[in-house]
């Protein structure tokens, strides 16, 4: 890990000011930053520690929804009774992520900003070609081992998967990222790679996430996060789905449904076509299975990741049937 200088920010304003400097990086839980610095992927000149700032770690809830401070720890949000009651999918997405130790360290703001990445990206010495690390250098994954790469939202430049869980649940419930001076919906916050895979989010230099707000809804209250992976715990998703569902008064016709996929796309993947196919329909195993297949519209595989195209719609279907009370 290259050496850097260390600045402990004493106010959010000081942190933002310092972050304007090229080569400066904010440090929250450090679980992405230090990991990637050790791999030689991130080489900050100055690390700005924001963990000693006060007032950015709170979790507040009212009838309108929840506000979660950027420095709230993943574990604290996962275990928060109010979040679990109003947004079960959000709580589950966090308790199924990483490990207990990492969840005690990692923050909500940092979690959103974990890189969209692949194992080639993590090995600059062995695999110099990576458009994301070094635009124009090529992509080592194309033609390589692609089991964990994305099938949705890819481009000729990059096929890396957005690996996070929380953002998948947040995108389902129209959560908003508060950047202090402006707000951006979680859906717009994340970018597909296109020709600029080095840009993953709408965050600009010198900006800091201060909070995430999640509006309350009946669909959010009746929601789940289903994560399927190669081992039972402490592993990223092979495919995941955040689903929320509200029935009409008859208890079987869909009034509102939210479907977002994780582990298969270059950003949290809201499947509005699946949602539209189910609104107004009576929920049944058949309608759900047919609608879930639409989630793979436009999917492209690169060899070993082909299984995701089969797996993801089944994960979506199972999650919908679960919140619909049909399994």
């Amino acid at each position, binding site marked *: *890990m*290259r*050496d*850097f*200088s*260390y600045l*402990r920010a004493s106010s959010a304003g000081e942190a933002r000011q310092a972050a304007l400097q090229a080569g400066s990086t904010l*440090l929250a*839980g*450090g*679980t992405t930053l*230090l*990991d990637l*610095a*050790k*791999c030689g992927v991130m080489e900050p000149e100055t*690390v700005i*520690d924001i*963990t*000693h700032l006060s007032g950015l770690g709170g979790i507040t809830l009212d009838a309108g929804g929840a506000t979660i401070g950027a420095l709230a720890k993943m*574990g604290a949000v996962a275990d928060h009774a109010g979040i679990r009651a109003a947004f079960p999918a959000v709580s589950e997405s966090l308790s199924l992520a*990483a*490990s*207990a*130790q*990492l969840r*005690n*360290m990692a923050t909500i703001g940092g979690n959103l900003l974990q890189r969209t990445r692949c194992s080639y990206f993590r090995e600059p010495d062995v695999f110099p070609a990576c458009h994301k690390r070094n635009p124009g250098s090529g992509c080592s994954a194309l033609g390589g081992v692609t089991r964990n790469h994305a099938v949705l939202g890819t481009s000729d430049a990059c096929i890396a998967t957005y690996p996070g869980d929380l953002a998948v649940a947040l995108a389902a419930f129209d959560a908003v990222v508060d950047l202090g001076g402006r707000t951006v919906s979680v859906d717009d916050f994340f970018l597909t790679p296109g020709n600029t895979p080095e840009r993953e989010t709408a965050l600009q230099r010198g900006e800091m996430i201060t909070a995430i707000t999640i509006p309350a809804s009946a669909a959010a209250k009746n929601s789940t996060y289903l994560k399927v992976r190669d081992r*039972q*715990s*402490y592993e990223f998703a092979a495919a995941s789905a955040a689903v929320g569902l509200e029935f009409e008064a008859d208890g079987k016709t869909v009034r509102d449904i939210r479907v977002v996929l994780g582990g298969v796309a270059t950003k949290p993947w809201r499947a509005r076509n699946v949602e539209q196919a189910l609104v107004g329909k009576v929920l049944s195993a058949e309608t759900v299975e047919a609608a879930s297949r639409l989630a793979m519209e436009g999917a492209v595989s690169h060899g070993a990741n082909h299984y995701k195209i089969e797996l993801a719609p089944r994960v979506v279907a199972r999650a919908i049937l679960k919140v619909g009370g049909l399994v």
Partner: protein
Amino acid sequence: MTRTIHLSLDINGRRHELDVEPRVTLLDALREHLALTGTKKGCDQGQCGACTCHVDGSRVLSCLTLAAQVEGRQITTIEGIAAENGELHPVQAAFVEHDAFQCGYCTPGQIMSAVACIREGHAGSDDEIREYMSGNLCRCGAYNSIVAAVREAAEMA
């Protein structure tokens, strides 16, 4: 030019002063600068749990924590959990009782993780213990005995 910063760390109830480069992790500060080698380095990238310590009572990975970041926090390592008179912590005693190790390399991390896991209330069943201890890998595969030790310590707590 090597930059160093002066840190004052509160470890196991004692204050330690040290001068280190800003990039030094808590794990390297403990092992290389303070001779507290009970905390182990396995992967050094957040994947194995061997380096687990407590910061303000929560279990964290010292390999992904900067020493500079935890100034002003209370750090507890495996050296700090037995009683003053040398009596083992109940989780340490349960690991011995259940022979919950082979080579012992993962053990300090397992014990620090287990102490926190029980305190968090996440050791209610074998399944819950497996889930909440999943951040601690054991290359010797002593998992069955580890679960038994944690369960017994949790029942006694």
